[in-house]
């Protein structure tokens, strides 16, 4: 027998104070299973103990928000009686340990958060950050993560339509894999997790339970099984086939009135799902683990409660619908087992082999969960960059930038993701600033994007947080969509370090400001802390997943140029080179403050662009982001296989600052009638200048020189295949 004491609690990740609280709540020494339940429910992952005070400050409301944070995923009204259900979630650590399975199960997990609410998943996106490409390890991780995302998403038949990829040495020992899923449901048919109905059966469906991913701390306690080390890796293996069956079976059951409450078994599987369902419903729950479908023999209560086996769900159903529900899961060859029932005790009681293994009052388990207001220190402001000379010339810089790992073509990655399954993908990866997916059977479409610029957040967390939200909003706007809401994935280092907690707090402040001004609330999200190796934190990375709606899918805008159009820059461009890719790639410096985001201007320019797209005045549209104006134009040229003749940089601004500055709130648009367009901008008092004319097969820069679109393409396409397809 293992002795339950503070040392064991510490090895489970509970502090002395937290363990004292457990003793107080229980009024006795907890059992091993009880200690396990407390440790996972009070873990950073489940309790948000370091981040909760800050998350509460995020704006979460708007007339179109149906469910904000607190449910499995956020829900927004998208018109026509439909709702979009979406969330983003990280699988950073598992993807470092085993890139393929880590990424694959990340996709599986976020899919479940969405279909558990009654939504059919219609799109996946991802936000990936990797270390220095020159390290062999980085290559192995990229290969595994990309295969894993494709392996799972392709098999379940949800198109992967967008995402982003960055490289930076700060991620050498800690890659980030953030996966986002978007689903569609009828807005009056949303399923929630609050349990109800005393006596109602608690049903387990999906895959059998094995000893997958049981808390590392316990792994070390070899008492459970002397030879277990080798036999029980903490890695989860995903089974997308079972997930696909689970999606179909759940949606089939959801078309009936059988389900009272439903929740996926995510992190801390049976524990968190049962505790949260009962807790939210203000009821009690009794589980008999003898009935849990098991894949392995001799599993203990502790193991079953903490197992993170994938592709499982927990439901509370109406007792008179049991036979019908069982028949549906039988049809799909999935396990279906009644493992308990709802009680009025306000406690979770777990029995196994006739022994009560856990009996915990639910209210204190939730209410007395630790909550820390951790100390913060502000990130010092960066001094202005000062003048920087151009060492290489405009075209040489363009060639270098368009081919660098952060800007080169992502086709090698996106060609491994099925982006067309479903037959509704209007704008595929690379074709527009946001992916556009039509809603089957309607003219409506959703626009989807993921964004954050970690180097900005690192230099100035508040401005960087603001920029991340603004960029997501801008990308949705650039395809003509009305931005509705975001999900976020807060990836940071160790929150016990004041400078890291300071980054977190400031990023949240910046995000909140942007959300407010842009009417773009947060409806779901995820926090991933302790992203450090050997004491070195990652760049603070609050990844934003944005969702917008287009009333008419046919009106969505791409970035590809066509010949015979005027090119116009809308927005104020002063040539901000601080933290720009030009500065990093051309001069080797990561310096200066990031570009400021003027939220009022952002909103005014964006609303104007959207209105002009709707009015049919714009033929192609791209925002200015990484790499600046000239990279934006080059990307438009590549996407449309059409060149452009560009005017000289305006007087009073260095040409390299004009072409490569990363000023915010700016768009490049191709318009058929520039004069009419300028007039519209003038009326709205918005800055718009002509920058050139489309046509031909080259980018011709007045007073600078010419480079062919095909040369640019060769540079753009080279990096990934050359890197990944050579041993």
């Amino acid at each position, binding site marked *: 027998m293992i002795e339950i004491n503070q040392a064991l609690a510490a090895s489970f990740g509970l502090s002395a104070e937290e363990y004292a609280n457990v003793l107080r709540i229980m009024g006795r020494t907890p059992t091993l299973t009880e200690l396990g339940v407390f440790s996972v429910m009070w873990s950073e992952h489940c309790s948000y103990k370091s981040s909760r005070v800050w998350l509460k400050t995020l704006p979460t409301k708007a007339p179109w928000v149906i469910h904000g944070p607190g449910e499995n995923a956020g829900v927004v009204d998208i018109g026509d009686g439909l709702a979009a259900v979406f969330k983003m979630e990280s699988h950073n650590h598992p993807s470092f340990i085993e890139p393929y399975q880590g990424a694959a199960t990340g996709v599986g997990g976020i899919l479940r958060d969405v279909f558990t609410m009654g939504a059919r998943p219609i799109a996946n996106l991802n936000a990936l950050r990797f270390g220095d490409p020159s390290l062999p390890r980085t290559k192995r991780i990229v290969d595994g993560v990309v*295969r894993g995302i*494709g*392996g799972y998403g*392709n*098999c*379940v*038949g949800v198109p992967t339509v967008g995402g982003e990829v960055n490289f930076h040495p700060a991620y050498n020992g800690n890659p980030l894999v953030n996966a986002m899923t978007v689903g569609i449901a009828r807005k009056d048919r949303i399923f929630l997790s609050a349990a109800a109905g005393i006596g109602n059966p608690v049903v387990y469906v999906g895959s059998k339970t094995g000893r997958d991913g049981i808390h590392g701390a316990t792994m070390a306690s070899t008492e459970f099984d002397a030879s277990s080390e080798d036999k029980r890796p903490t890695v989860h293996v995903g*089974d*997308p*086939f*079972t997930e*696909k*069956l689970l999606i179909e079976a759940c949606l089939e059951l959801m078309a009936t009135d059988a389900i009272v409450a439903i929740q996926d078994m995510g992190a801390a599987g049976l524990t968190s799902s049962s505790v949260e369902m009962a807790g939210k419903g203000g009821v009690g729950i009794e589980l008999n683990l003898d009935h849990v479908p098991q894949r392995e023999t001799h599993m203990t209560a502790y193991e079953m409660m903490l197992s993170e086996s994938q592709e499982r769900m927990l439901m509370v159903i109406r007792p008179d619908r049991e036979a019908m529900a069982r028949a549906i899961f039988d049809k*799909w*060859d999935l396990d279906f087992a009644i493992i308990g029932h709802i009680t009025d005790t306000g406690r979770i009681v777990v029995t196994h082999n006739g022994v009560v293994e856990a009996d915990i009052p639910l209210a204190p388990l939730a209410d007395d969960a630790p909550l820390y207001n951790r100390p913060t220190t502000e990130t010092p402001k960066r001094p202005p960059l000062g003048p920087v000379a151009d060492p290489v010339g405009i075209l040489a810089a363009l060639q270098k930038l368009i081919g660098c790992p952060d800007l080169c073509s992502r*086709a090698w990655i*996106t*060609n*491994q*993701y*099925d*982006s*067309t*399954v*479903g*037959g*509704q*993908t*209007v704008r*595929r990866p690379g074709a527009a600033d946001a992916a556009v997916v*039509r809603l*089957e059977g309607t003219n409506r479409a959703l626009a989807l994007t993921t964004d954050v610029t970690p180097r900005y957040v690192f230099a100035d967390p508040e401005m960087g947080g603001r920029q991340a939200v603004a960029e997501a909003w801008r990308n949705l706007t650039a395809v003509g969509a009305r931005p509705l809401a975001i999900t976020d994935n807060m990836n940071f280092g160790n929150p016990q370090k004041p400078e890291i907690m300071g980054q977190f707090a400031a990023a949240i402040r910046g995000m909140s400001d942007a959300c407010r001004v842009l009417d773009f609330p947060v409806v779901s999200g995820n926090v991933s802390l302790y992203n450090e190796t050997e004491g070195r934190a990652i760049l603070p990375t609050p990844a934003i997943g944005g969702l917008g709606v287009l009333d008419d*899918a*046919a009106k969505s805008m791409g970035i590809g140029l066509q010949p015979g159009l005027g090119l116009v820059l809308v927005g104020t461009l002063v040539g901000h080179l601080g933290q720009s890719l030009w500065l990093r790639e051309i001069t080797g410096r990561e310096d200066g403050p990031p570009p400021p985001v003027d939220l009022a201007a952002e909103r005014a320019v964006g609303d104007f662009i959207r209105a002009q797209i709707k009015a049919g005045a714009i033929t192609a549209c791209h925002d200015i982001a990484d790499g600046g104006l000239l990279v934006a134009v080059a990307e438009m040229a590549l996407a449309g296989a059409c060149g452009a003749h560009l005017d000289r940089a305006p007087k009073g601004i260095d040409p390299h600052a004009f072409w490569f500055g990363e000023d915010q709130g700016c768009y490049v648009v191709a318009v058929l009638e520039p004069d009419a367009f300028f007039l519209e901008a003038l009326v709205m008092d918005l800055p718009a200048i002509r920058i050139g004319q489309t046509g031909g097969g080259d980018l011709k820069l007045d007073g600078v020189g010419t480079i062919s679109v095909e040369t640019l393409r060769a540079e753009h396409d080279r990096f990934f295949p050359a890197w990944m*397809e050579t041993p």
Partner: protein
Amino acid sequence: MRAAIVVFPGINRERDMAIALTLATGHAPRMVWHKDTTLDGIDLVVLPGGFSHGDYLRCGAMAAQSPIMPAIRAHAARGGLVMGVCNGFQILTEAGMLPGALLRNSGLRFLSQDCHLRVENAATDFTRHYQKGQVIRAPMAHGDGNYFADDETLDRLEGEGLVAFRYATTSGEITQAANLNGSQRSIAGILSPNLRVLGLMPHPEDLVDTLMGGTDGLPLFQALAAA
């Protein structure tokens, strides 16, 4: 044209296929569960794309043993129309209803991109609305589309005009570069000797709407609707 789509567990392009068929025929196809055993009153049976049984073991291997398969064979034996796309093509080869096999893509990676197909035989109920030699675009999305058969089989397929589509360049040339998955003789789709069973890897059903980038796939469904 009364069409049925067979739903094997794990397939995922049945909805895409239903949309294309509905568009061309004006009415929704019947969805048939893999455990059903009859296909009464059906003119065209479609085996859609996806990952039947997770593509575990070999793509299409387990689906080829489904309870519905005898009915599909009987339908084909009566001269009924059968079309297998992607996973459906793999199922048809695993079931022995079309010759050869589909191996792992030669580059060992999943391929999701548009490809171009040259129509090799336009005198079938599937391809009548195309011209022989015409080049059409279609999305591909597969990890195992590398068509393999022994030389004798390949010679026979070619000799009897049973190659329906080949991977080609936009101008219709057959090149190694255009043959993205490494298929023998660039074969993308083949026919049964009576020209009534078609298997092909790319997805014409995902290119039937200008909004999704084009309608190159539509004539195939229109031809079927008129068959």
